[in-house]
């Protein structure tokens, strides 16, 4: 087991390196001069040249990359150009909480919807229930989250006036119940999409497990069907489900941008979108890097869980 963990940790390093290189190249190789963008249209050549020298944009790419990486490792993600002088890290931290809470809440909703539906669809394969689940999961995969969000807002907020259409309440400051009221629609829109994927994955892995020999053995021993589904089969189908949960969390974080804009939630997604409008490259770079790192980390954790749960994997 230890060797497996070590191997996985070691393979992390080249991946992180490649990711950082890709992000750096994306920002620095595409046309457009950040110095000119920052100074505006009336800047003179001398001004632009001076800013170039100050920001170190004249140095070779390798040096710039090295500088950026060493800064990041020290926690210095640069200064925002839109909110002048504010460190990027501070901006990100202040916008962190709503996005994380939104992602967690939407994952809970996803799991609540998808897991039982997937299991039922696997159990009652070929029946109307299976067909319904197929169609619903198709819808989930096909609808972009903001469509779902707009539909929900129309239904719940405009027509039925049950839930608020926008805004965010901090659960620790304003109370847990207002938080739930404001976050339910966003979390539902975000969560329904991934529920579609998760339903399919759960059904597929449950079907695979239900066809195996030990299940047949349990049936012939007379184990009740419910126990087979929920205890024996699900345990082995769980691994695939865990992978989907991990990836779904990252998708939720990324897709939060759209939902946050729709519901006016001041999270990282909103920050990202605002930075787009204001051409704040530092913030965009930092957020992309952060989420990519999170992605790599979550994949690592999933790999480790796999290795811990399934001995076949760590011994190969």
């Amino acid at each position, binding site marked *: 087991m230890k060797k497996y963990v070590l191997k996985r940790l070691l393979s992390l390093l*080249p*991946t992180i390196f*490649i*990711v950082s*290189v*890709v*992000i750096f190249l*994306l*920002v620095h190789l*595409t*046309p*457009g001069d950040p110095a000119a963008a920052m100074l505006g249209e009336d800047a003179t050549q001398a001004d632009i040249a001076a800013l170039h020298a100050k920001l170190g944009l004249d140095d070779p790419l390798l040096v710039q990359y090295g500088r950026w990486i060493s800064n990041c490792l020290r926690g210095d993600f640069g200064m925002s150009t839109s909110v002048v002088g504010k460190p990027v890290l501070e901006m990100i931290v202040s916008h962190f909480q709503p996005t994380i809470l939104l992602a967690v809440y939407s994952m809970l909703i996803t799991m609540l919807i998808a897991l039982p539906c997937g299991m039922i669809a696997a159990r009652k394969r070929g029946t109307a229930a299976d067909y319904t689940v*197929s*169609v619903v999961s*198709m*819808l989930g*995969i*096909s*609808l*972009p989250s*903001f*469509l779902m969000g*707009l*539909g929900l*807002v*129309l239904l719940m907020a*405009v027509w039925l006036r049950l839930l608020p*259409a926008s805004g965010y309440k901090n659960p620790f400051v304003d109370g847990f119940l207002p938080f739930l009221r404001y976050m339910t629609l966003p979390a539902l829109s975000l969560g329904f999409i991934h529920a579609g994927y998760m339903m*399919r994955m759960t*059904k*597929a892995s449950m*079907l695979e497990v239900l066809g195996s020999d030990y299940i047949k053995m349990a049936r012939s021993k007379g184990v009740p069907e419910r126990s087979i589904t929920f205890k024996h089969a699900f345990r082995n189908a769980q691994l695939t489900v865990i992978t989907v949960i991990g990836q779904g969390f*990252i*998708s939720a*974080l*990324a*897709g939060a*941008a*759209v939902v946050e*804009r*729709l519901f006016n939630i001041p999270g990282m997604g909103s920050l*990202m*979108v605002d*930075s*787009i*409008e204001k*051409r704040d*490259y530092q913030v*965009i*770079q930092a*957020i*992309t890097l952060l*989420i*990519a790192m999170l*992605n*790599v980390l979550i*994949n690592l954790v999933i790999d480790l869980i796999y290795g811990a749960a399934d001995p076949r994997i760590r011994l190969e």
Partner: protein
Amino acid sequence: MTPSASHTLPFQSPEDMKRIRRQLVREQRALSVRKFFRNKLSVVGLALVMLILACALFAPLITSLMGVDPYTATMSKRYTAPCAEHIFGTDHLGRDIFARVLYGAQISMTVGFTVGLLSALVGVTLGLYASTHKVLDNLLMRVCDGLKAIPNILLAITLMVMLGANMRNVIISLTVVSIPGVARIARSQALLAREQTYVEAMRALGARRERILWRHIAPNIISPVIVQMTFTFATAIISEASLSFLGAGIPSPAPSWGGMLNEARIYLYAGWWMVVFPAIFTALSVLGFNLFGDGLRDLLDPLSGQ
């Protein structure tokens, strides 16, 4: 007909063989088509795809027949609900929504098709060459892993910010985002195909690598690539809509569905029609391509899936 000495069986001359082969291929194709049409969901998918394509192709014709166009902003007609003259209503600037939705179909179809085709071409080339070179393979896979670690939307947003918001850059960004997926499939299929005996035989005969790759391996990996293309198409439509919704995609006054939803979001209380119609069309197109792709995959690659 006297069989010549070079044939061992009667009725097996080269012309006969060709004829038999052609007939077999024809029958197989008919069987596949029939199998496809038996799957109700795939048929629905195909119908939806055809519908949206028709909207895109005939948008100029239909709108000129109905006397509406997507760009004329009449301030006196703002926020009109669906009526006889404007069957989908008008938006916050008085533009006819029906016309905008139809022209939006043009945008979505163009983006989807171009992204699908370009990413397939580049991805297949990369995947095929990677399957031959060990070094290139490692490099490619590492870069693909790196690109995959960045969620698609974020990558697309970053690219769009750097390049500027217009249709051409949307296509470029979405192609870059889609290439790793296709390259992976092409590479793994090519690696499988290389193990086949006929490739070994060709190499023994001294065939050049390019010839083996393009004339023999490529046609065999076409099916999964085509299936992936349909899903890339669907994803591209969603991504373009999301990008435009966030303001990083095709800017107004272009009638992109995502852009229309972005503009309508503020006026939700003023008119549901501004949101509902673009939303329905977006959903239908993506659903159509996903169902169609599923059906294609069941057809071409029955070993995968549920």
